């Protein structure tokens, strides 16, 4: 599998001067390593202050690690290739309002294209395509304050897509949205993954989003605690609760049922799986 991004023994601390005197635990990132492969969806989870936002900032080159290496598209990220690398990925941030630069939907989608000097005719075509991909074509001339949070985030995704990125980073992109907006954004990401070969790295609290990922990376106190498929990760129930993470609702219910003596068979990630086993429960006896 082709590697898209990776970190190798990355250390980072926000307060450089204090680094000498303070213990290891104050580091925002401590010996963090992971690899992201082409076409996969990796979800990064962890409670507040676990270093997951720092991870995103290092990946997009807003900061550089104090030691270790960040690799993107099989090249080490440095001041020299920063802009080139950024043009090959898209990032959607948390706050829908604070990343909307243009005065209308199409202006905002075109912003990255303008910055990279794409010719006018090409821009018009790419803006159209990108807005179609996120189903926002009817809103092409709308102003941001007439859009819902979910729509603004979809526009932000279109802005990233217009650059034909190889990697899409969602930095808590759904955390400020209402349930409906969250649903819209997740649907679009799912759809995009099936249409184009897009690699997704999502930093999130949302369990539904986590379950859709191919692999999960759990962060705790600046370290990579574990990496694995959702099944693998959520089997470590108590471990996760120790580092302040919730388990999916279906998983909690099935655990509680087991504790009271109901002999359930499978592991249930989603409510659907759980419901399916419950209503067929008496047949399988």
């Amino acid at each position, binding site marked *: 599998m082709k590697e898209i991004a990776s970190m190798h023994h990355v250390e980072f601390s926000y307060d450089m001067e204090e680094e000498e005197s303070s213990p290891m635990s104050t580091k925002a990132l401590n010996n963090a390593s992971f690899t992201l492969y082409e076409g996969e969806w990796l979800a990064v989870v962890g409670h507040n202050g676990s270093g997951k936002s720092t991870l995103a900032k290092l990946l997009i080159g807003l900061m550089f690690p104090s030691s270790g290496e960040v690799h993107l598209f099989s090249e080490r990220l440095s001041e020299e290739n920063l802009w080139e690398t950024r043009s090959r990925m898209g*990032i959607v*941030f948390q706050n829908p*309002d604070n990343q909307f*630069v243009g005065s209308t939907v199409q*202006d905002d989608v075109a912003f*990255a294209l303008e910055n990279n000097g794409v010719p006018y005719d090409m821009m018009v075509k790419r803006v159209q395509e990108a807005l179609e991909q996120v189903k926002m074509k009817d809103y092409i001339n709308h*102003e941001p304050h007439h859009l819902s949070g979910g729509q603004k985030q979809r526009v932000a995704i279109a802005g990233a897509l217009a650059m034909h990125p190889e990697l899409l980073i969602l930095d808590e992109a759904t955390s400020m949205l209402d349930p409906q907006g969250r649903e819209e954004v997740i649907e679009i990401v799912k759809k995009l993954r099936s249409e184009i070969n897009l690699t997704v790295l999502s930093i999130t609290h949302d369990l539904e989003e986590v379950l859709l990922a191919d692999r999960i990376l759990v962060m705790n106190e600046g370290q990579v605690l574990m990496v694995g498929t959702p099944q693998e990760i959520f089997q470590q129930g108590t471990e996760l609760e120790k580092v302040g993470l919730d388990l999916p609702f279906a998983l909690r219910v099935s655990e509680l049922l087991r504790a009271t003596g109901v002999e359930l068979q499978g592991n249930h990630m989603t409510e659907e799986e759980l419901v399916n086993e419950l209503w067929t429960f008496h047949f399988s006896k």
Partner: protein
Amino acid sequence: MLEKMIIGRFIPGTSIVHRMDPRSKLLFVFLFVVAVFLANNVVSYAILLGFTAFAIALARIRPYFLINGLKPVIFLIIFTLLLHIFFTREGPVIFEWKFIKIYEEGLRMGIFISIRFLVLVLITTVLTLTTSPISITDGLETLLNPFKKLKLPVHELALMMSISLRFIPTLMDETDKILKAQLARGSDLSTGSIKERVQAVIPLLVPLFVSAFKRAEDLAIAMEVRGYRGGEGRTRFRQLSWHMRDTAVLITFVLLVGVLLWVRK
């Protein structure tokens, strides 16, 4: 009150004035403001008024709407008219009653200056009513382009303007939210002495500023990540297009100045 004010407001439409290039409109208004000072007699002022009425008609703005929206300005014009009538003491007296004396020159000057003022306000209002703020920004950016040679940061100024315009509704919403939050905590903005009322605004402004700075920081990061490196090597998505009608506007202006020069004393 503010709802009715039309100074600086944009009303979308499809008239020929709406469809004109912002550059030609801006250039015209700028030159027109200078040309207004050419008028110095009845005929030339009549031409100016007539031309302005023509522009309003072309833009398909209803006169009633315009007058209603410009009420505060019209009061100001009437005020200056009265000042001139009562305080200019030149020429023969044309009206005398007790201690009030009105001189011919005063009446003349008052009317001329009022017309000049009115024409200026009307023509700039036609510009802002028919041109969206963002097109005005684009127009200004291209018009000011030659000043780049003088180290004027034209692109940056235009970007600042367009971002400010984009964030006005966002910050208005925010103000409203903070206001409600402070009201819920018992702050009182509508009663008390002036000093108390001013003090009550502070808990409104501080959170607004804090959040505006936070937004600015987020926006800067979002722009940087999307590849913003200043104006160099950038292409433009919003294109301006110059049509025959825009050339016609400028020709009209030259004709107008010619006529004014011919009829003035």
